C-alpha cells in the first residue's frame, strides 16, 4: 500500500513535466497547425542550460536556469519559426517532417558540443529531502516540479484570459482570418506563441534534470507522450492539456507499478485509442463551423 502511494508523486511529477512540454505543443498545434518535433530538442536545450550554468551558479543552477532556459529555448523556437516553419503554415504533416530534420541536426549538435554520454545536474541541497505523508514518500524535488507546473499553468491561464496579447492569441486560434481582418497581426501573434511554447519546453528541460540525467536524446523520450497529451486533451486547450497530462502521468506510473514498464506503454496506447472512440477530437473541442 505504501509503495502504491509512492507512485502518486511519481505519476504527478511525470504528468507535470508532460504538461509543461505539451502546453507548447498544444498551442503551436492548435493555433498554427504546426507539429513541432524539434520541441523535444528545446527540452534538451533547457536541460543543458542548467548543466552549463552549474559551473557558475553551483548548487543553485536549477533555480538560475529556469528563466535562462526559458529565454534560450524560446529564442531557439523563435528562430525556427522565423527561418523555416512560417513557410509551412497550412501543411501540418510537412512541418512534422521538417522539424524532425531540425531535431536530428540539433541532437547531433548537442552530441558534438556536450559529448554523447549523459551528464548530471546536481539538485540544490534544499531539494534533496523528502516528507512523509500518510506513509507515502514525497521527495521535495518532485513537489518542486509540481509547483513549477502549477505556477506555469496559472501564468499561462492569466496570460490567455487577462492580457491583451492572450486575447489576440485566442482570437487567432479560434478564427485566423477573422482575427486578421479585425486588425490582429496574426504573424506577430504566431511568433510570440511559438516563443512562449518553446520557452516552456526549456523550463520542462530544467525540471527534468531533477528527475534524471541529461543526454542528447533526452527530448525524444518525452515528445511522443507529450503529443499523446495533446491528442487526448484537445487542440489548444489549457484545461484539456492539464487533465490529460496528469491522467497520462498517473496511468503510466500505475500501470508500470502493476504490470511492468514494457506493457505499460502498450496499455497507455490502448487507453488513448479507446478514449478517442468516445472523444475523437480530444477532451475539449474548440467549437467552430469549419468542416474539418
Amino acid at each position: 500500500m505504501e509503495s502504491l502511494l509512492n507512485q502518486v508523486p511519481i505519476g504527478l511529477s511525470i504528468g507535470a513535466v508532460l504538461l509543461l512540454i505539451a502546453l507548447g505543443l498544444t498551442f503551436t498545434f492548435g493555433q498554427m497547425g504546426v507539429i513541432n518535433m524539434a520541441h523535444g530538442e528545446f527540452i534538451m536545450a533547457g536541460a543543458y542550460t542548467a548543466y552549463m550554468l552549474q559551473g557558475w551558479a553551483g548548487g543553485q543552477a536549477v533555480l538560475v536556469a529556469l528563466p535562462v532556459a526559458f529565454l534560450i529555448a524560446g529564442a531557439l523556437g523563435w528562430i525556427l519559426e522565423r527561418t523555416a516553419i512560417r513557410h509551412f503554415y497550412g501543411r501540418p504533416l510537412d512541418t512534422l517532417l521538417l522539424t524532425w530534420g531540425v531535431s536530428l541536426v540539433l541532437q547531433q549538435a548537442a552530441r558534438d558540443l556536450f559529448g554523447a554520454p549523459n551528464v548530471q545536474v546536481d539538485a540544490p541541497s534544499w531539494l534533496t529531502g523528502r516528507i512523509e505523508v500518510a506513509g507515502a514518500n514525497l521527495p521535495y524535488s518532485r513537489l518542486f516540479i509540481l509547483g513549477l507546473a502549477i505556477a506555469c499553468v496559472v501564468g499561462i491561464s492569466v496570460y490567455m484570459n487577462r492580457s491583451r496579447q492572450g486575447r489576440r492569441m485566442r482570437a487567432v486560434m479560434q478564427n485566423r482570418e477573422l482575427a486578421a481582418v479585425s486588425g490582429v497581426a496574426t504573424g506577430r501573434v504566431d511568433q510570440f506563441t511559438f516563443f512562449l511554447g518553446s520557452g516552456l519546453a526549456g523550463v520542462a528541460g530544467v525540471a527534468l534534470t531533477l528527475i534524471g540525467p541529461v543526454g542528447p536524446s533526452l527530448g525524444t523520450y518525452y515528445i511522443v507522450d507529450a503529443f499523446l497529451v495533446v491528442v487526448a486533451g484537445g487542440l489548444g486547450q489549457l484545461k484539456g492539456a492539464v487533465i490529460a497530462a496528469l491522467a497520462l502521468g498517473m496511468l503510466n506510473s500505475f500501470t508500470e507499478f502493476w504490470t511492468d514498464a514494457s506493457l505499460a506503454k502498450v496499455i497507455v496506447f490502448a487507453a488513448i485509442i479507446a478514449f478517442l472512440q468516445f472523444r475523437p477530437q480530444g477532451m475539449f473541442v474548440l467549437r467552430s463551423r469549419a468542416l474539418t
Partner: protein
Amino acid sequence: MSDRLRGYTLFASISLLILVVAPLALPAFRLDELAKYLCFAIAALGIGLAWGQGGMLTLGQGVFFGLGGYAMGMYLKLHDAGGDLPDFMVWSGVEKLPALWGPFGNPVVAIGAVIVVPVAIATLLGVLVFRQRVRGAYFAILTQALAAAFVILLVGQQGLTGGTNGLTNFYDVFGRDPEAESTQRGLYFVTAIVLGVLYLGARQLVKSRFGRLLVAVRDGEDRVRFLGYNPATVKTITFAVSAGMAGIAGALFVPVVGIISPSLLGVVPSLELVVAVAVGGRYALAGAILGAVAMNYAKTAFSEEWAGGWLYLQGALFILVMTLAPRGAVGVYQQARDALARRRGDRPPPEPEPAPAVKTPKEVPA
C-alpha cells in the same frame, strides 16, 4: 515517345539493371547490401501508397516491418533449434516454449503470419481510428506512439523476443547456409522480384477506380463522404495493404541481413523510411523506391566515412527537400523535363498538376 511507352521502357531497363547488371557487376557483399536496400524499398512502397496516394502519414511502419520480421525470425529460430528451445530463451532462463511461439514452428503458418498479422493489426487500428474521423496529424502521432510502445514492449519481453538483441544467429535458411554466396544471391533475386511484383500491383491499384477514390480521399475527404463513399473503408484498406508490404519487407530483411531487433523498428527508423519516401518523391510510387535505395545507400556510404556527419546531412537534406522541393527527386525531375520541353518549344507543356499538399495556407487546424 508516348508517356506510356516511356514508362514501360524505364521499368524494363531498371529491371534489367537490377536483375542482370547488378548481380554480375557487384561483389556478393555489396549485392547483399543492395538486397537490404530493396527490403527497405518494399516498406517504402507501402508508405508511398498510404502517404503519397492516400495522405495518411504513417510514422509507425517499423511496427509492421517488425511484425513480419519477427514472424520470420521466430520460424528460423525454431527451425535452428530443432525441437529444443531457441538459444536466447535458454540464456534468459525460459524453460518452456511460450505458447505464442508454438505455431511459428510451421513454415506455412509463419509465412502466412508475415502478412496476416500486420494486416490484421493495421485493419484494427484503421477501423478504430479512421471510423472516428481521426486523421491527419492525429493519425501520424498515434502511429508514432504505436512505434514507441512496440519497441518498448519488444525490449521488455526479453524471454519472448530476445530483448534488445532481437533475433539473430540463424544457421539455416530454408535448408541453405545463410552465409553462402549462392544463398545471398538467391535471396537478392527473391527480394528484387517481390519488389517488382508489389510495385506493379501497387501501380495497378493506384490506376484502378479504387486508386482514384484514394487520391480523392487524400485531397478532399469530406467531399468524398458527401458523394456517398465511406472514406474510412478506403483508408483502412490502403493502410492495411501498406502494413502488409512492410510485413513482407521485414520477413525478407531477416534472412538477407540475418537479424531483426528493436533498434531497427522504433520511432527513428520508421521516420527514416518516411524521409526516404519524401526525398525520392512521395507522389510517385517509383519515387518511394528510389528514395529508399538512395537514402540507405547514402547512409551506409556516409557512416563508413564519418558517422556523425550522416545525421547532419540527413537532417539538412531533409530540411532542404521539404522547403525547396516538397515533391522530392521525382518532382524535380518532372519540373526539369517540363522546363526543357518548354524551352525547346516543341509543344505547350501539360499544365503541371499542382502538388496536392502544397496548398495555399488557409484553414490552419487540420
